[in-house]
């Protein structure tokens, strides 16, 4: 499970962020408080990505498989951070 959590960490953060945004938009409606919540969630999502990346860096990369796992995980975190910012923009600048 640990390897899967490492491989999919960034994408899971993205999923949590997206569905939380959807919940706000669908069930809480549009208001200043909702926008504040989106901002908070986005900051939390980016922080989670950063923490995961920080924890990933010192992990052992001995062996082909470990190097591969670290690189895919870092790619996932980068993609996640990009998508989180992108999908929050409509609420933050709209």
């Amino acid at each position, binding site marked *: 499970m640990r*390897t899967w959590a490492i491989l999919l960490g960034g994408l899971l953060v993205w999923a949590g962020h997206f569905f939380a945004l959807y919940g706000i938009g669908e069930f809480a409606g549009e208001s200043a408080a909702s926008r504040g919540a989106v901002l908070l969630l986005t900051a939390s999502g980016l922080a989670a990505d950063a923490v995961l990346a920080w924890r990933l860096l010192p992990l052992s990369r001995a062996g082909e498989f470990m190097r591969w796992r670290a690189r895919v995980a870092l790619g996932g975190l980068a993609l996640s951070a990009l*998508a989180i910012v992108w999908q929050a923009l409509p609420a933050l600048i*709209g």
Partner: protein
Amino acid sequence: MRSETGFDPALYDRFPTKEPRPEGEEEELRRIWCKPKGWEYLTVVNNNYVGIYYLGTAFLFFLMAGVLALLMRAQLAAPMLEILPQATYNQVFTMHGTVMMFLFAVPAVEAAGVLLLPQMLAARDLPFPRLSAYAFWAYAVGGLCFFASIFVGLAPDGGWFMYPPLTSKAYSPGINTDFWLLGIGFIEISAIAGAIEIIVGVLRTRAPGMSLDKMPIFAWAMLVFAVMIVIAFPSIILGTLLLEIERAFNWPFFDAARGGDPLLWQHLFWFFGHPEVYIIFLPAAGMMSMIVATVAKTELVGYRLIVLAMLATGFISFGVWAHHMFTTGMPPMTTGFFSAASMAVSLPAGLQVFSWIATLAIGQRSFNAPGLFVVGSIVIFVTGGLTGVMVAMVPFDWQAHDSYFIVAHLHYVLIGGMVFPLFAAFYYWMPMVSRRALSERLAKWVFALMFAGMNIAFLPMHLAGLQGMPRRVYTYLPGQGFELPNLVSTIGAFMLGLGVLLFLIDLARNFRLAPGGGNAGNVYDGATLEWLPSELYSARSIPVVRSREPLRDDPRLAGDVAKGRHFLPGSATGHRETIVTSPLLAEPQYLQIMPGPSAWPFAAAVFTAGFFLALTVQAYSFAWVSAILAVVSILRWLWETDRPVRDEEVDIGAGIMVPTYVTGPASHGWWTMVILLVVMAMIFIMALFSLAFLASNQPAFWAPPPSMAAGLPIYFLYGAAFLAALAARPLLKRDARWPVGLFFASAFAAGSALWLDWTGWSAAGLAPQASGQGAVIAALQALQAFAVGTGLLMAAYCAARVARGLMTQPRSNTVDLAMLFLCYTAAQGLTGALFGRAIGMT
């Protein structure tokens, strides 16, 4: 990570072995994995046969849906034609979409997985061959009966996404809609059965040494594809169930006048429907990645990025479902989120496309048949992807929605993203299953006709759509500027059809099935394990994998494997068997003894299809008889499994000993049950979402739920049910009767809790016909009743096995699986009881 399971990787150095193999070893393998004869072709479970059956049937549906498309194009060739009456046209376009999406696209890629994965992973077969056979027969029998509805004018006519209120009883009173709702029921079951097989197969039956970073990219694609099915299909299962219940029993899930909401259907449908596009695309992309590297005679550029792109697509595609609903008046903020996610999903798709282009650019391109279709696919798919980004923009979508622009876009995506890769795969892998490869000369004509025909057919539809031509119209008036684009589209569609016809001629001339060896072989010089010399038992021995392209990196590998110098060179137990390996590093864990041919999966499939089809035509007695027979057939098929094994440990080659019977989280059966429970949990979660959605959108119809405190006995009973089931596993070693008693106790406790829950809601005045809230609460209870009933059946099954002395001790997979199921049942019941009370509390 040096080892995942404690296995010493240095043991791999013992291979290839040097000692001569005993006489008769290969003959015994042939005897165990023998060819079927006569009626045994119906009961065969070997992936070489089931895969071909599956693929052939899916292709048959492609042809039939293609004929429907040509009928539509003939009708639209000129204004005011009367080739098809309006009502028939509605049935034809509905069946075209439904058959292409449900009966061709998903089964075709699943079939490719069943056929290719065991060879690619060097397993003897997928881990549940009978499940594959069941999935195929349920799909084939049910699908053909479903398709036949068009010949008697009873085919569904509400479009492939069946929006209510058009499909409600008031506006669609006939059984046409029921054919769709129940008819695809067995396809959903079949798809999920196949997905479970593929997930466990990819993660647990890879050749030793084939760690995740060395796995063929097609296997990665199939893994993500199967997980997506497990997450996405429950939504449509629930949706079709709710709509059919609304039609049959008048429970107003989607009736806005009684507290339901038709938009709920759209959410449930598209939560499945959009990921479905990627469910179809990903395996095709996996095929493309395999073929591109071979035709360019080089290593695939960016393997790691492609894996990442596939994983990312699997996630992000679940965040785009509502982009089909931009015109329904969703809150603007929500619309913005979905628009952004819809654009974001193009990023991983783009990564894959750039990787293919880079591989072609650096390699030695050869425009053979697979190469042509690969390049054609890239061109068409990129065009469809670009128009996809256009319609992801909300203002543009408002203009283009429900116009022919969308028809053009989706055909570019689906034909470029799935049909062309599938044809590339036909040409590429045909020599693996046929004595002769297909004709390269004819292939150029097939490609030219299909590529030109596709673009001539669908490019003008962009223009027709932008000019304002709505989709799903059976004709149009002259003088609106639609004549020329429609005539050109029709010519293109027939060119495309001609290309497919030419392909059929080539198939008839050259395709000669060779499942037991004697195939044309590795004509394109592929580097992965499916090109090892193989027979019905797959490769003679299971190789140690040391790289991603083992045949290219070790030219002696094929010879060594054929001489039995790797793992499992013969049969260790005298049965069909394969090596189960660990999920990350593929270290050998144990030997799985596999079930052989059986008539029961076939019987179960026929009765499953019979159940759904009999319900459709309202032959209720026959439906219930079919359901009972289906359950009996499944139990009979399971009865032969999980038997005590004579040898506790066996030598799988070079003196490496592994167990023959494993229980708990390490066993493949445990994994299967967990995946099945994820499916059930997803159905339940979508039902909870439905409740929350209606509470949010129809507050005027919301009645106060029973109090939380009044539910205390219910929570207690569910807790007791959970603990009773959990205690069964450790108590098995004392006496085999203990688990049986505890399972019955667990099921009765859960049943009592359900009864108390329902009486509480009834006392609160809630009725399923009265409001959307009542309908969803009753649906949640019905789902729970199904789980409790299944739990009771499992307890009775365990009791029967104990009575016949078939329960292994001190550990048993049967007990493990029943324990997992009953624990889940209790957890689901508790969640439902709490959630139902929490939603709408004042």
